[in-house]
């Protein structure tokens, strides 16, 4: 029999090394899988396309950053709630609501030029996400309804709401009834920060937010509050921390940032509202947050890693005709090895005989 016994002290070195070990194990496993499924293609060239090309080719690198930016923004918001033990699983829904709210503002002022429009859309996006997440906060505080269920279920409602809006008020009036909005006009589009690519200002916002979150957690009382509420709820009560406040802040921050990310996606790479807007960023960001152990700066890197798996996975599909599930397999393995490493850092494995 195998038993896991908590270690008295966690190794500092291992905490830093474990992501690298997890990554190495993932690469090794991928290598073995490729050995089995590739007939006459060199594994090394597939590996190059999967892991190196997105970093070396300037176009793919720009796309990697485009893909990483929303994951960073949503992941940062989620990590704050997760620290406090508030499980917002429905960032996808708040992302959609942010895109609809902010996008609607952009479409309302269609062809109206002005520097004020984009900030207004961003604010509407944040408020849209916040309001949507506040449903879960209210239900949890008032009726003790589990926020995991509420946020998750509301994601499906948000997707249907988006579709309804695109069939109705937000539909392109000259689009032959296809369920899409107009393309946003220039004032409603995010500034591009790398000429000739789709990389937009969202990346800079993500980095600033990461620094802000780091300060908030390290220096601010609220950071202390969520940390203690998450790790020792009873102690937090004795310390006089307001539990309800933690729930509100956690859900409003994560909802608002998810909403902002949704608006950035609509007014950035997509350039319009379409039924295809929900693309699992809200769910993938959960992986991003945990891969970074909820650390605000770490999230920047884990988002890049996950984005790499998307762009690289897409390219091996194009170049070598491999199945599209490669990306999911890669992400699944990465999370599995990472969690396994974490378990082994916190616990030691002891073998003992059953009849003992």
């Amino acid at each position, binding site marked *: 029999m195998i038993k896991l016994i908590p270690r008295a002290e966690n190794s500092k070195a291992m905490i830093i090394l474990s992501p690298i070990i997890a990554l190495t194990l993932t690469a090794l496993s991928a290598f073995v899988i490729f050995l089995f499924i590739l007939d006459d293609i060199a594994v090394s060239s597939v590996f190059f396309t999967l892991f190196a090309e997105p970093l070396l080719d300037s*176009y793919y690198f720009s*796309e990697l950053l*485009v893909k990483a930016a929303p994951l960073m923004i949503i992941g940062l918001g989620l990590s704050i709630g997760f620290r406090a033990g508030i499980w917002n699983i429905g960032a996808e829904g708040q992302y959609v609501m942010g895109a609809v709210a902010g996008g609607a503002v952009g479409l309302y002022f269609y062809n109206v030029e002005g520097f004020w429009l984009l900030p207004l859309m961003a604010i509407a996006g944040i408020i849209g996400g916040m309001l949507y997440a506040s449903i879960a906060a209210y239900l949890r505080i008032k009726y003790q309804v589990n926020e995991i269920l509420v946020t998750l279920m509301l994601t499906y409602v948000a997707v*249907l709401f988006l*579709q309804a809006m695109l*069939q*109705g008020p937000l539909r392109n009036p000259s689009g*032959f*009834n*296809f*369920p*899409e909005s107009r*393309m946003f006009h220039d004032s409603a589009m995010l500034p591009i920060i790398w000429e000739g690519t*789709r990389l937009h200002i969202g990346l800079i916002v993500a980095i600033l937010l990461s620094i802000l979150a780091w300060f908030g957690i390290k220096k601010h009382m609220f950071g202390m509050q969520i940390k203690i509420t998450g790790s020792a709820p009873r102690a937090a009560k004795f310390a006089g921390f307001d539990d309800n406040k933690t729930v509100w802040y956690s859900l409003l921050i994560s909802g608002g940032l998810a909403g902002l990310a949704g608006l950035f*996606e609509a007014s*950035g*790479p*997509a*350039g*319009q509202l*379409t*039924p*295809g*807007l929900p*693309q699992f960023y809200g769910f993938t960001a959960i992986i991003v947050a945990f891969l970074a152990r909820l650390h605000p700066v770490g999230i920047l890197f884990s988002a890049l890693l996950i984005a790499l798996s*998307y*762009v690289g996975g*897409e*390219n091996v*599909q*194009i170049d070598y*005709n491999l*199945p*599209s599930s490669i990306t999911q397999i890669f992400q699944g393995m990465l999370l599995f090895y990472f969690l396994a490493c974490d378990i082994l850092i916190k616990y030691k494995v002891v073998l003992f005989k059953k009849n003992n």
Partner: protein
Amino acid sequence: MSNRRFSSVLKLSILSVVLAFTGSVSADPVKAAFVYIGPTGDHGWTFAHDQGAKYVKEKMGDDVVITTVESVEENSDSERVITSLARKNDIIFTTSFGYMNPTVKVAKRYPDVKFEHATGYMLEDNLSVYSARFYEGRHVIGKIAGRMTKSNVIGYIASFPIPEVIRGINSAYLAAKSVNPDVSMKIVWVYTWYDPGKEADAANALIAQGADILMQHTDSTAPITVAEEKGIYAFGQASNMREWGPNAQLTGIIDDWGPYYLARVQAVKDGTWTSSDTFDGVKQGMVKFAPMNNNMPVDVRNEAMKAIIDLSMGAIHPFTGPINKQDGTPWLAEGETPPNFPDLLTMDFYVEGIDSKYPN
């Protein structure tokens, strides 16, 4: 005289040698790529496009290199996939409506690459659009359904209220009504192109409302499987679905993209490709039919075959007046047929007699 002729022959042969050398560009294989919305699988919309791609390979052999990318979501990812393909290919087919704006954006950035977008409406110098007159197929299955229903209720599983789907509903209804004045149509909107669960739910809901024959404008085999279980009839969609409903499938509407794809890729090879707007049907062979099921009475089968022949000769049009809109306002006068634009391509109303609220 003969000298001159000789010299002109010489010139010609020199010219042809020069051409043969400079023409070495076109001796390279054409690189053609296809972007698919779903997995290629063994049935449905993407399967039919992939069959078209395979047909091109089969006919052109070493003259073509084909790349396919499956399950490309209709979001900002698709622009990256199309861009990646544009860097390495001569012609790119994007086979779902949702790729329209990304395809337009990439086409503008890569003016030397040819693009072909299925079912959209945006044209550029290097971007064609193509679609099929599926409503002609619906005309044939509408006639069969009108004859075969005993409950006089046809169930219709619809995806999104876009013109293509509306055309199909109207065409099927008018054809069914023409052979069976008592027929009515129940419509369920599932707002998806492919979701076996939702499609099966819709099928069951329609059966509960009395439908004993199902039509679908969605891609999975779920409705036909439900029909087989319940012992009622249905029609295959996009490809032959006989396997999933050997008794249920009376026939099926088959999309045959192969000849079109071959012509377009060949045109790139020959250097004759130009931007075009294609809307072909039974006549051009873009819309075909699965074999008629033997469990249909002979007269029903003959009537369906006659409709197919008439369509292929251009002798009939599924929308021939007099036809009123659902609210009773006239649409087509006696003997009138609608133009492609705007009537067919922007259709956003039910025809008179459909007892269902138009989704809005």
